[in-house]
């Protein structure tokens, strides 16, 4: 599906401007996307893995009180959950800022460059 967004760059391109090579642009987009994805997965893994690791190593230590009846275990679970929410929202925001505009550019350029360009690994 073609997205109908236009950018300011379309209207204010300098004379002699040449769009970047699509294959290079695709590779750059892929690298950015991979970087964001691996950061998100690391954060999610840490958010679940750390409380799980603490549960296996500290044992009853997680039942220690932190504030009234609130325990250290509850605190780690709360922090883990909030970290996952924050990481997901960060990922979406980063993709919207860094990847979506480039994907839109490439999508507009795709029909002009023909399928052969897009087959480059």
């Amino acid at each position, binding site marked *: 599906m073609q997205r109908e967004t236009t950018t300011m760059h379309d209207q204010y391109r300098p004379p002699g401007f040449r769009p970047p090579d699509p294959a290079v642009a695709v590779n750059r987009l892929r690298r950015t996307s991979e970087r964001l994805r691996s950061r998100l997965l690391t954060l999610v893994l840490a958010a679940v893995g750390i409380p*799980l690791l603490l549960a296996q190593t500290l044992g009853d230590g997680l039942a220690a009180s932190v504030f009234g009846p609130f325990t250290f*275990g509850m605190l780690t679970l709360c922090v883990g959950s909030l970290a996952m929410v924050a990481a997901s929202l960060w990922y*979406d925001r980063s993709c919207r800022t860094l990847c*979506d505009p480039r994907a839109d550019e490439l999508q507009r350029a795709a029909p002009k460059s023909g399928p052969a360009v897009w087959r480059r690994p």
Partner: protein
Amino acid sequence: MKYGEILASSVPDLFAPLMAFLLVIIVAFLFCLNSGIDNDTVADFFTANRSLSVARSALALCGDYLPTTVLVSFVGGIALNGFDGMMIAVSAIAAIAVLVPLAEPLRNTGRFTLGGILESRFGGTATRLAGTVTTVAVCLPLMIVQLTVAGNVTAHVLGMSMPGAAQVCTILIGLLIVSFAAFGGMRGNSMIEIGKVIVVFGTVVTVSCAALSRSHWDLATLLETAAAHKGGANFFYAPGSVYGHTTTGKLDFVSLCATVALGSAVFPPILLRVSASRNGPEARRASSVAVVMITLFQGALILTGLSAAAMVSTSAILSEDLQGQTSLFLLAEAFTGGTTGLLFTMVACAAFVTALSTVAGLTLTASASLAHDLYARVWRRGAADEGREVNVARAAVMAFGVISVYLAVALHSWSIVTLSSFAAALTASAILPALVYSLFWKGFTRTGLLWTLYGSLVCCAVLEIFGPTVSGGGPLSLLPGQDFHWFPLRNIALVSVPLGFLLGWAGSLLSRRSQDERNRYAEAQTTLLIGHEPVGQG
């Protein structure tokens, strides 16, 4: 007692729950009837013509992550096991967080079945067939589990304790839901999911607020009361109450969390739901919003579980069900003093609508795989016209639904732990590695894919059969009187997931990538990144 006599028997004080059930059925039927009018094409029936907005997709995704088992088991798990129950709830949040980076590439493939998504990377009917086999192998056990739980819960709500009552409820609910799925397609199913999320979230929040009001709106008092009723804070809020403190118990608990986090992430109904978004970025945004919703919901569910721990005794919970699946109802009964109050009716209604939407989603997913992959692509080689494919899909919905209902009734007295554990482990061990490799790994080959899917299926079946959930694991085993188990873990994901990834890697290393596979990878990578629609329908 014969089934006819059960239907004719009168049960006192059930006017409110019965009226609520009827209201849910009528509203759901109207939704499906209204949505079904437009289901003329394959894209309409299975993906709502890719028209779901971010808000609707997020709500529907949230609904997909809240099956009946989550609603009834998590509350019981938290009420009985304290910290361990809470840890499992947090793992469920991780499941949807794992979907976030996958949602956009999955939607960008333009396919809606597992076989279709995999076929976008590797051509040929073997890929479609493997996708169909895996989808059915995951959906069928889950359908049996959901229908069994739905029948038990409905019989409990209606106060029908006579033998065979739960089976009758399973048959009636099953056939009703299957007909909804056949009429409504994805559009109708999405509307029911959205309605379910609103009803269930409202119910859980209301129950939590009622519990807090009993504790004078003081969360600390609620936590102290819950701990005091369950052997003290040092026991209730410490890990180890599910499987104990032994090394095997600890590994089993880690495996359980891995099963919940990885298994729920890419259930086949989720793949179908993601494909109904308008485009890749919207699918990604919807899954991010769903993470927030699920986190709020799990928070409310934890509060409800702690309320159940504070207000219902352990013996009362265990006397009804060993896994505490009726805790939510017992809590509602504790508030209203019986099965006639508004709160109990709300809880009953929430459980009913949850069962309805979950089973409808699973039926739709299995029928999509059978009609689109098996019939249209493998058997007819893409020559079937759209109208005929939709008719076959409706027939597949009915056939799959009737078979599931029959199996659910036949296996009603058996333990369902094995089936749900197997389905979740298979998703985590076969579907997740296959998707991750085919979306992101350049060196993945068709041999690697088939090794992952079929190898993991065999591996999961063997580990499950020779594990304690089938024999030698106490009263919750499938065959409680026998013991032939040699695999020590009840949850097999800790072994089967790495094995699934290993099989894909080994299969790819031992085979050669063809030129066609190289070309398809390059095309698929561009499609995943910028979201071109592929030629043809999925």
